[in-house]
């Protein structure tokens, strides 16, 4: 069964990042499988309106500017008319929102459910429970997930976290991991320095990514092994700490700080290494270690969040989030490298190429879409009932918001009736025409 899917998020091209590339790659694979996919996001500077990306992927850059943290201002009701218009024009039957940080995604899911369009939500990150910002965010998530038909998480730890935060039934959450485009991350043996053992670090140098751990691990490793060198890509507030370590221990020839590395240059840096070091303090999935494994590097990482689930034990050395444990694991990895006991780079690459593919992700996502399409409709009363369960006081507020949204939808239907809205051209028909010689594909 072929669906018309609308991907919504505040995070999309021209921004480069995990969520952005996830949406793009998933959309492309779904188009390959014959579905219709559009993307809705906010304006990026002057980039506003409708653009087409490859394979007829239509992107709506809504004329709303981001306010804070690349997200739009959450107003709940003002996005209703424009989202309703898009969903009707494109005859969408499934709305797929990404990332709990994205106000646009959560609002679009809410409007979709008000219009009885099926909704799916993908969560890409882990949250705490105890501090004030987490408590508020989790309440908002409960509200969103109370209405959603199905949720997708990128790892089992992420699923546990989402189920606890959003208080939803665990069988309504599917675990579909991220994937990597293995054709980009290929290993080469020529870039590596055969005399030395190179450890590559590629992350933002912030507290969350364990930059302090990195700063304490480097001098220890450098003193134990004289042939080890570090290449560190990425920038951030903790860069100073690394530079101080370099100064203090006189390791100028053994530590190279590259600063911010553009996305297209990441592979070039990765293939120069033998070992990839990840010191994050929290990660839902960590796509960086999969990219590194695809380039043939042995991975050494802190065992936090979803990281233990991602790679098999012969491709990753896990450590506790402490300097001593990391040093121990690095020692083991370095010893294995010296004794040539590591998995060959080509072997690692082939494994990643077969295991984490976007086609597999799209296939599993399609199963979710089929399942929710077949499910029976939920009445307004049932929806309000579910919102009421979100809390003693909050439940009543959520019911009020949902009811008001429903009334506003009726108002929109009266002002601009459904039959007066023109349907947009379906790009799938255009693609079929393309083979007949008419090339209407535009790429931006």
């Amino acid at each position, binding site marked *: 069964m072929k669906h018309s899917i609308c991907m919504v998020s505040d995070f999309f091209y021209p921004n480069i990042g995990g969520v952005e590339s996830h949406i793009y790659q998933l959309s492309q694979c779904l188009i390959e499988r014959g579905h219709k996919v559009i993307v809705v996001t906010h304006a990026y500077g002057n980039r506003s309106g409708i653009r087409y990306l490859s394979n007829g992927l239509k992107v709506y850059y809504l004329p709303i500017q981001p306010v804070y943290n690349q997200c739009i201002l959450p107003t709940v009701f003002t996005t209703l008319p424009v989202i309703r218009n898009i969903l009707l024009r494109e005859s969408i039957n499934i709305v797929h929102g990404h990332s709990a940080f994205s106000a646009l995604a959560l609002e679009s899911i809410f409007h979709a459910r008000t219009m009885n369009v099926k909704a799916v939500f993908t969560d890409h990150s*882990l949250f705490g429970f105890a501090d004030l910002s987490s408590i508020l965010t989790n309440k908002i998530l409960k509200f969103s997930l109370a209405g959603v038909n199905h949720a997708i998480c990128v790892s089992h730890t992420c699923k546990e976290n989402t189920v606890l935060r959003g208080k939803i039934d*665990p*069988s309504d959450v599917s675990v579909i991991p991220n994937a990597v485009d293995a054709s980009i991350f290929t290993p080469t043996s020529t870039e590596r320095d055969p005399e030395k053992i190179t450890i590559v670090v590629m992350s933002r140098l912030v507290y969350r990514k364990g930059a302090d751990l990195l700063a304490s691990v480097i001098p220890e490793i450098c003193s134990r092994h004289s042939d080890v060198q570090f290449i560190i890509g990425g920038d951030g507030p903790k860069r100073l700490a690394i530079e101080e370590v370099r100064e203090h221990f006189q390791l100028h020839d053994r530590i190279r700080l590259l600063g911010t590395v553009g996305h297209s240059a990441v592979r070039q840096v990765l293939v120069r290494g033998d070992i990839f070091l990840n010191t994050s303090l929290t990660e839902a999935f960590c796509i960086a270690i999969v990219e590194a494994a695809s380039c043939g590097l042995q991975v050494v990482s802190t065992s936090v969040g979803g990281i233990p689930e991602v790679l098999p034990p012969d491709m990753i050395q896990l450590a506790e989030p402490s300097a001593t444990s990391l040093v121990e694991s690095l020692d083991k990895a370095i010893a294995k490298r010296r004794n040539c006991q590591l998995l060959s780079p080509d072997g690692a690459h082939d494994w990643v190429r077969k295991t984490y593919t976007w086609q597999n992700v799209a296939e599993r996502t399609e199963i979710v879409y089929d399942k929710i399409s077949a499910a029976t409709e939920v009445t307004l009363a049932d929806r309000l009932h579910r919102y009421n369960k979100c809390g003693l006081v909050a439940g009543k507020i959520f019911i009020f918001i949902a009811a008001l949204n429903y009334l506003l939808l009726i108002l929109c239907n009266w002002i601009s009736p459904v039959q007066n809205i023109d349907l947009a051209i379906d790009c799938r028909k255009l693609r079929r025409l393309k083979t007949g010689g008419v090339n209407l594909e535009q790429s931006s």
Partner: protein
Amino acid sequence: MAMSCDRSRKKWQKVLYKDQGVSDNYVDESFLEEMKKNLHIRTYEFWAVVRESNVVMQQIYSVWIFVAVYFHMRNFVLTPQFLFEMSSAVTIVGYIVNFVILHENALTKSRWKDGKTMGIFLILGFSLSPILMTLTKTISTDTIYAMTFFMLLANLLFHDYGTDAAIVSQAFSLNAAIFASICLASRLPTTWHAFSLVTFAFELFALWPILRRNLKIILSFLLGSVVTVSVATVSSVAVVVFLLLHLFITILCPAWLIRLQPYKNNIHGPWDEAVIKQ
């Protein structure tokens, strides 16, 4: 979908790279196994909490004494001279007590500096008191009383009771109290009244907390009775309110806190941000 059951079915592993033959929304028995609840919980003992609630009551006593003194001065029961002499004497005694308790072997220079500060303050205060008095004279009495109420409330809220919560701001707390005293000073007849009230406010809200922290003995009972008596002579309604407030904070609030402990729900698990172990 799930494979048909075979007797040699392997245990489900929490990994993403294997196709374990189950659907994506499969929920294993080990779901949420690693979740731990209420790891670092404190148990409270009722009388210990009552004793600790004393810290809050001490500051409330200060506020009530201050307001009672204002009303006494307004009713001409208390003369500004008497207030000034009494508060100065108590301050000097308190200063010596503080000095003795801290066993400071500081040079006499520090004493000289403190003396100079006091002198400068008194002179400045006295010369500025006509201005202080007329600062808020044109505002209606109701507004003044409302502002005083909120300022003293702010003093109580932001006062440093010994915790390191984000809301604590000693400077803001003191400023609010002094502003309250200036508001009230404008309702008094002469500059001498205003000066003595503001000086008293400074001694009560700035200097007394310092001594209180170092004393570590509970003056509650003595202070409580002083407050009750002084408030009773102003208004009987006020003393009833005061006693009810006292009861609420000292007995009811600790009981409530302890009654709510079973509802504690701290969730810990592998999704928590790791704490770097040394």
